[in-house]
């Protein structure tokens, strides 16, 4: 539950109407009633359905693709390939490295080659079986380390490195000389599959004027608009993109995947002049969309006997699969966070985003943070063990505090609640006492308590231009409609924007509603990622709500015959100094009768981040979220199974806009992190995914859930509205290192590769026991 004391303290210092309150979400009623609001619920009656022909080998030349039987199959209406693309055969996120349809070559098992459309999806599926493909296999490579070897097969013309990024601070060689001890370690993380419960889906309607309307399950309408326009050779304004209610996203629906889906559907739609729909099957979704990058991270740290860190050197290798997607940006974030939230005078980080012939890796909640912190926080515990210092004490000795410098020499400002997060989390989990108790446990079930801490640079930082536009208008029925291209897909963040608007205008929250994200009336606000909605979108909301509020006061002033600055507003009524008043409804009616516009827009652009491109020294993010998570586990030493009993998750969120929504985000992210720690792994064999279904890819079920205590700490940041910080992504970052550290505390085994499956754990434990017996 929420640390009510901290919230109360803040709330009392600033009396707030609705921000900081746990109000209901606008979309809840439709969802509990099962209303038809998701993409495949609203496909037009006469639509065609697509099925995709995909490669089943990882790397090969396409010698021959014979679609003749498929074309002739009764009921097949259209078959599309790269030949049918009027514009450019491209569907990308960042680098121009990926086609919509493969032409002469495939680079991963599952790459789209063609699509078949029929009014009956079963017929399209049967026709896919009739496609005959001849492959000329090419040598392939399936790990970033192999891909970097001198004779490795080249997956793209420019070589296998999509991005190399560096951090250079001080001089690590000097730092190692000053150290009393040097500790090295290598850490590995898997492909984690996002599993949005609604697989990718979209449909395209061809309009009579030659334009198209796209409706889809997406995060970023404008990215889709640009992508589809390029494929169809249309102007962007001729491509309307509407986000339907989206059943979970977590990353893959923000980049090129919706362009894949809608691009294929659009080709069929414009050719046949009929609506065309494509819904990925779960298997297709798991193979075809982007996942979390596997990383191999080697760490070398110099430390004094006292525990003070002197030097931290990291090499990170990310497997981005056959196409880069947003891999370069993921690697940037991992690179900048590689040392964890500590003060280290000498830092050397090299991060590589590497192509392989595995399936694609790209955006997934956390975006490099989970991998970087898994390595850093596991390594801190390894250091603590070697120095025989309590892991908590070691951390407190080295954490970032206001006035200290990060790994990129950015000064930590007063909005840093890291220490309080750590103190509160460890107090709540009874850190010292429990760890002592657990040492003396007998039996086959052993308990342990572990900790991990983090920082998370907010918003896009170095990843791109950070701006958002929010529109507001009051309709003739007095509903204040908020419109933005920042999308809702479960986060609740857009509902938070309504709270911010209500707070700014001093009006009840139920006056406000959220319209669908539609390029027809919402301006580009960049992708809905990086937890930007509340931070960047929130600032834009404050601005536009302020403008609309001013407009209403001016109209009220005219009606009350007093100067605008003498108008007071509260609870939907506008008063002048002389007891006269007009209601909100009166003001709106007056505006309509006089043709006065009740429509406003505001764009907030975050200041640019300035830093040295060679050394990455400078301001890389505008503010940071901080967190500390503890995990209490019970390890069954006979089966290797781990039960997480309790987790305490403390986050400095700046300002909690909606506490219950915030808890929901934290709890959900924590469980995704728990899955990452213990059971989630997309397994490739020669590039082919062997577990592309939810029976063999394990996400946590309700019976796997620990007790979770959420602690909100508020140290307002400088960027977000009311000091709010990003909280969408951070919760998924720390569970893995916290759990792995707890396992080490329980059984004295350091798991350096996640997931810590029962197999890995038990075998590691047996090896450790064998070594101990021999020694």
């Amino acid at each position, binding site marked *: 539950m929420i640390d009510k004391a901290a919230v109360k303290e803040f709330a009392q210092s600033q009396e707030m109407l609705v921000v900081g309150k746990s109000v209901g979400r606008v979309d809840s009623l439709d969802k509990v009633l099962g209303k038809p609001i998701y993409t495949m619920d609203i496909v037009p009656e006469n639509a065609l359905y697509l099925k995709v022909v995909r490669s089943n080998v990882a790397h090969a030349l396409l010698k021959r693709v014979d679609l003749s039987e498929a074309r002739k199959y009764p009921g097949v209406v259209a078959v599309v390939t790269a030949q049918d693309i009027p514009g450019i055969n491209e569907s990308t996120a960042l680098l121009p490295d990926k086609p919509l349809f493969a032409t002469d070559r495939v680079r991963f098992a599952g790459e789209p080659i063609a699509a078949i459309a029929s009014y009956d999806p*079963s*017929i399209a*599926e*049967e026709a896919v*079986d009739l496609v005959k493909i001849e492959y000329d296999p090419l040598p392939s490579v399936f790990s970033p380390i192999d891909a970097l070897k001198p004779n490795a097969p080249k997956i793209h013309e420019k070589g296998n490195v999509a991005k190399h990024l560096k951090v250079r601070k001080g001089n690590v060689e000097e730092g190692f000389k000053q150290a009393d001890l040097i500790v090295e370690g290598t850490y590995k993380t898997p492909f984690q599959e996002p599993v949005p419960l609604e697989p990718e889906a979209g449909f395209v309607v061809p309009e009579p004027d030659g334009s198209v309307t796209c409706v889809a399950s997406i995060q970023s309408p404008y990215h889709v608009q640009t992508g589809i326009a390029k494929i169809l050779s249309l102007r962007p304004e001729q491509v309307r993109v509407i986000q339907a209610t989206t059943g979970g996203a977590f990353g893959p629906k923000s980049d090129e995947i919706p362009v894949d889906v809608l691009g294929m559907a659009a080709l069929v739609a414009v050719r046949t002049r009929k609506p065309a729909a494509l819904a990925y*099957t779960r*298997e297709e979704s798991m193979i075809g969309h982007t996942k979390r990058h596997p990383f191999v991270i080697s760490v070398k740290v110099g430390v004094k006997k006292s525990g003070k860190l002197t030097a931290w050197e990291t090499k990170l290798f990310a497997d981005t699969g056959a196409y880069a997607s947003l891999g370069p940006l993921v690697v940037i974030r991992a690179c900048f966070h590689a040392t964890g939230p500590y003060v280290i005078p000498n830092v050397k980080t090299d991060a590589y985003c590497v192509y392989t012939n595995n399936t694609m890796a790209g955006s997934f909640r956390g975006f490099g943070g989970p991998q970087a912190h898994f390595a850093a926080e596991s390594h801190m515990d390894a250091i603590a063990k070697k120095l025989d210092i309590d892991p908590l004490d070691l951390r407190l000795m080295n954490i970032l505090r206001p006035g200290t410098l990060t790994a990129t020499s950015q000064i930590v400002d007063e909005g840093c609640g890291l220490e309080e997060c750590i103190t509160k989390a460890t107090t709540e989990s009874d850190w010292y006492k429990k760890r002592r108790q657990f040492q003396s446990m007998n039996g086959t079930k052993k308990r342990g308590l572990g900790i991990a801490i983090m920082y998370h640079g907010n918003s896009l930082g170095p990843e791109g231009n950070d701006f958002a536009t929010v529109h507001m208008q009051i309709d003739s029925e007095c509903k204040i409609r908020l419109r933005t291209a920042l999308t809702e897909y479960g986060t609740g963040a857009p509902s938070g924007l309504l709270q911010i608007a209500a707070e700014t205008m001093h009006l009840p929250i139920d006056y406000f509603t959220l319209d669908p994200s539609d390029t027809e009336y919402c301006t580009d606000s960049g992708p809905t990622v990086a937890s930007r909605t509340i931070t960047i979108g929130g600032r834009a909301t404050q601005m536009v709500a302020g403008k609309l509020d001013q407009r209403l006061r001016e109209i009220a002033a005219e009606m009350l015959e007093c100067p605008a600055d003498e108008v007071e507003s509260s609870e939907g009524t506008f008063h002048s100094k002389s007891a006269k008043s007009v209601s909100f409804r009166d003001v709106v009616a007056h505006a309509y009768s006089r043709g006065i516009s009740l429509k406003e827009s505001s764009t907030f652009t975050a200041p640019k981040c300035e830093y040295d491109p060679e050394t990455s020294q400078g301001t890389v993010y505008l503010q940071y979220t901080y967190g500390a998570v503890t995990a209490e586990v019970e390890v069954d030493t*006979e*089966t*290797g*199974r781990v039960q997480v009993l309790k987790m305490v998750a403390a986050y400095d969120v700046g300002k909690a806009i909606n506490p219950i929504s915030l808890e929901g985000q934290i709890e959900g992210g924590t469980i995704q992190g728990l899955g990452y720690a*213990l*059971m989630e792994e997309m*397994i490739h*064999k020669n590039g082919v995914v*062997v*577990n592309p*279904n939810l*029976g*063999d890819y*394990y996400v*946590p*079920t*309700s*019976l*796997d859930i620990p007790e979770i205590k959420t602690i909100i700490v508020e140290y307002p940041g400088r960027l977000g509205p009311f000091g709010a910080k990003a909280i969408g992504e951070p919760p998924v970052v720390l569970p893995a290192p916290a759990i792995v550290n707890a396992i080490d505390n329980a059984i004295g085994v350091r798991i350096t590769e996640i997931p810590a*499956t*029962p*197999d890995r754990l*038990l*075998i590691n434990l*047996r090896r450790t026991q064998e070594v101990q017996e021999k020694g």
Partner: protein
Amino acid sequence: MRRFDMFVPENLVDLLQYLDSHQTGVHLIANGTDLINRIQRKQVTPKVLVDLTGLAEFRYVKREGGMIKIGALTTISELIASPVIESRYDVFREVAMKFGGPSIVNMATIGGNICSASSSEDLLPVLLVLDAEVHVRSIHGERTIRVEDFVKGKRVTDLKPNELLVETSFGELEPHSTCSFEKVGMRNSLIIAFVNCAVYLKLAENKLCDEVRIAFNRVNGKIPQRARQTEKIMKGKKLNDQSLSDAVATLRDELKLTSDFRASEEYRLEVACAIFKRAVGRCADRLTGEKILV
């Protein structure tokens, strides 16, 4: 899903006649928990399915002539709700607790489970230690065959194309005997087993093992089987930590397991031994009311 035809028989005779005259390309379907999964994963491409859900006469659990008899179309949840499956047969509840989730338990049929004969099968090890039999009918007659002989390989049974499995039965548990089931997978629900284990234990006085039957989802090969060598070692010995330890040593040799993407051979062996001990321990606890094993 690709298209196919479905034959929906009104009664058993129609069904058996159909099976007799259509012996290829035909798949039987009860509640689809296994078959539809396989169709969607393109492991099976049926031309005709035969729907069994209309044959209500095969949904029963009864006690007759010293035997427990279960109709093949009985679902797992119907089985454990039956008063015939009282506390002596709690082993079935142990299976149900770890058997998918509530909807799977409501849908999966006993017959469907036996005939799917997959190596992550939970019910088969229990039926093996109960020395169960299956009854099979065709238009030409009936036969009875032991479950152990019925399951011949991974997803291969002795069911002929014109036959329907109609019932499974086993002798009632004798006094001083009980069964237990253990399963380990990656998580706590919707679990595919790395290893599962069923144990039948009958203790005489002085905690002597009168009889013990042990089955795993894999012993030597890819099907559920009995671990007969380990059974032999335990028979007639007093059950204590030492004899159990000897049994585990035999089990280690007897089990010939394999690695796949879900788990390694080494891990499976470790866990098989661990859950074997737990299953025996639980049986012993139940029978003696005391903890005789650590």
